[in-house]
């Protein structure tokens, strides 16, 4: 029984600190303190910000407090106090989530910031209630000591893994995290810097083939449509003013490139001249003055 109790302290502490970190990351990303909502959506607007801050601070304090009072330093009343408050926190959270589920069924619990968008369900509720019981079970636990034998250490690790698996099973956030880990944004929605496209173009054989015709370092026009970025360079071909149009696909590796040589005035395509690789040295890469062109 003592072993089971011992495992709960690092588990609870890890969950509290990771919940606080996830909320903090979301606050930084969104740029607003009251962004990490969840049950705070139940309160009037003026109370949401202080509540969100208080929740974050409480999680941080309890997470650190559980670790500090686990050993000899905070034995007795401080340890009991921290564990009791932790249990109360999860109990209040479970009740709030029950209320949130009834009042705002579309809102996620916000427990782990951006990962907790899924509406509150029985798993979220069970997790909070279970963690409250777990915290309650640690009250009265004597100071934790490092395991003396290898067998004890393995048993503790096994227990911790089993409990983590149980918590993971009760966490809708796990699915969201796994999706994000393996998620690759489609090229249509991916923001790709124009400089990266230009670099890819300059490394391509199409660029090398036509570099002798190109008359300027920077493109005359650059624009993007869906998965293609178009770059237009002034050119000269047989003493005729022309433009070379490159269409560069925004794939990350080996982008497909199409080219056309057009009349500078009419925009009508005409036949390529013979390759003129030696006419002009390779142009040096240079940042694009995009704001003027787009």
């Amino acid at each position, binding site marked *: 029984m003592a072993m089971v109790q011992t495992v709960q302290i690092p588990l609870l502490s890890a969950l509290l600190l990771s919940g606080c970190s996830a909320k903090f990351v979301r606050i930084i990303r969104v740029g607003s303190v009251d962004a990490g909502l969840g049950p705070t959506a139940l309160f009037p607007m003026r109370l949401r910000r202080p509540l969100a801050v208080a929740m974050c601070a409480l999680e941080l304090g309890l997470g650190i407090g559980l670790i500090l009072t686990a050993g000899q330093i905070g034995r007795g009343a401080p340890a009991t106090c921290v564990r009791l408050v932790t249990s109360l926190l999860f109990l209040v959270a479970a009740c709030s989530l029950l209320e949130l589920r009834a009042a705002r069924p579309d809102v996620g619990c916000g427990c782990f910031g951006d990962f907790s968008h899924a509406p509150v369900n029985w798993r979220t509720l069970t997790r909070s209630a279970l963690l409250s019981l777990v915290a309650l079970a640690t009250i009265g636990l004597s100071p934790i000591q490092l395991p003396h034998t290898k067998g004890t250490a393995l048993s503790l690790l096994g227990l911790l893994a089993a409990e983590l698996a149980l918590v993971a099973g009760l966490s809708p956030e796990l699915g969201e995290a796994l999706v994000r880990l393996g998620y690759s944004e489609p090229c249509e929605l991916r923001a790709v810097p124009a400089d990266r496209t230009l670099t890819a173009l300059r490394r391509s054989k199409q660029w090398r083939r036509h570099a002798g015709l190109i008359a300027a370092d920077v493109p005359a026009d650059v624009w993007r449509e869906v998965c293609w970025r178009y770059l237009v360079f002034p050119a000269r071909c047989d003493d005729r003013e022309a433009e070379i149009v490159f269409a560069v696909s925004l794939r990350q590796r080996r982008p497909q490139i199409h080219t056309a040589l057009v009349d500078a005035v009419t925009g009508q395509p005409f036949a390529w001249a013979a390759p003129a690789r030696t006419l002009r040295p390779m142009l040096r890469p240079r940042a694009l003055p*995009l704001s003027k062109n787009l």
Partner: protein
Amino acid sequence: MLKARGDRGSCDRCAGATGTADAARIARRRLLKDAVFRPQAAHGMNHLPGHGDFPDAARLPRAVTGTVLDVSPHVLVLGEPGARPGSEQRFTLSSDTTTWRGAHLEATALRQGDRAVVRLPPGRRAVADKIWANIGRVTGTIVEHSSDFMIVDEGVTRQRQIVVIPPRAAGRIQVRFPTLQPGYLIDIIGLRGPEALVGAIPATSQPAYPADRVPAAPLVSGHVPAAISGSATWHEPDGEPPGVLGVAYPALDPETGCAEEAAAGSERGYGRMPYLAVGSALLVRNDCNGASCVLPVTGCAPVARLFNDRCVTCGTSPRGRVADLTEASFVALGGELDRGCFNATITIGR
């Protein structure tokens, strides 16, 4: 403007009227894109952007904008004050002609000096089918609210708008916009006055979230389909020539450095849309009546990204705002300006 090739006809007949460098650039981009992809298309690469049949402009209604110089039960005269004699336009009013001026009224309720948008049915260009007088729309974030008026931010490239909600319209508007507090979104149609918009009808329902807390967009897996269904709205001309056909698109390439991007208040907005540029062509189809039209992207619509609303003109649109049309485009596609939106499908890469 976008008739890049002689073998194409499109409903962007008025776009060339801008006479601006932008118009020329839009046309040139289409031409250059064709030059790159047309040879390949001839060899079975029709899926590449830049190809498609254009609809017939003559089959679409047309919108004319002007100032009411005179109106009688049978004739409406539009023009511009101080314009040369003979430049005014006369339209016949029939028994079917409907007029909106804050509410549906008789055509004789129009007054001299009103700014009118007149819809002309296809094939009968001298007959006014519907008239909207002094119609205006304010879409943006409330930045200030007092008992008498609201100030609404429509983005950094537009002036802040003053909206007055008269008592007779307050109930109707507050049903759809319950939170008239700074930070929340608003979209109201009303009568355009010299200094303020007098709100008449809500154009949509208010999102539950403030503008700076737009919910995270759902992740998109695989390729985004070329055709996207959602809601098409309209906006008042702000520096655009009257009658210009075009569409403000919610997702211009971030690399464009579009000043309006900063106004969005959200990095991406709720609806994720494929990135395009000014000059890209969109086939916009009104799902309520089947009318369609190829329109150039003429600007960005960052505020549209903040609305996760639905258009319910004919059924419920599957997603929020996919296009913010100019008045002329909206009317040409059969939209009713006083309804605020129509269910639309946009196809990219035509």
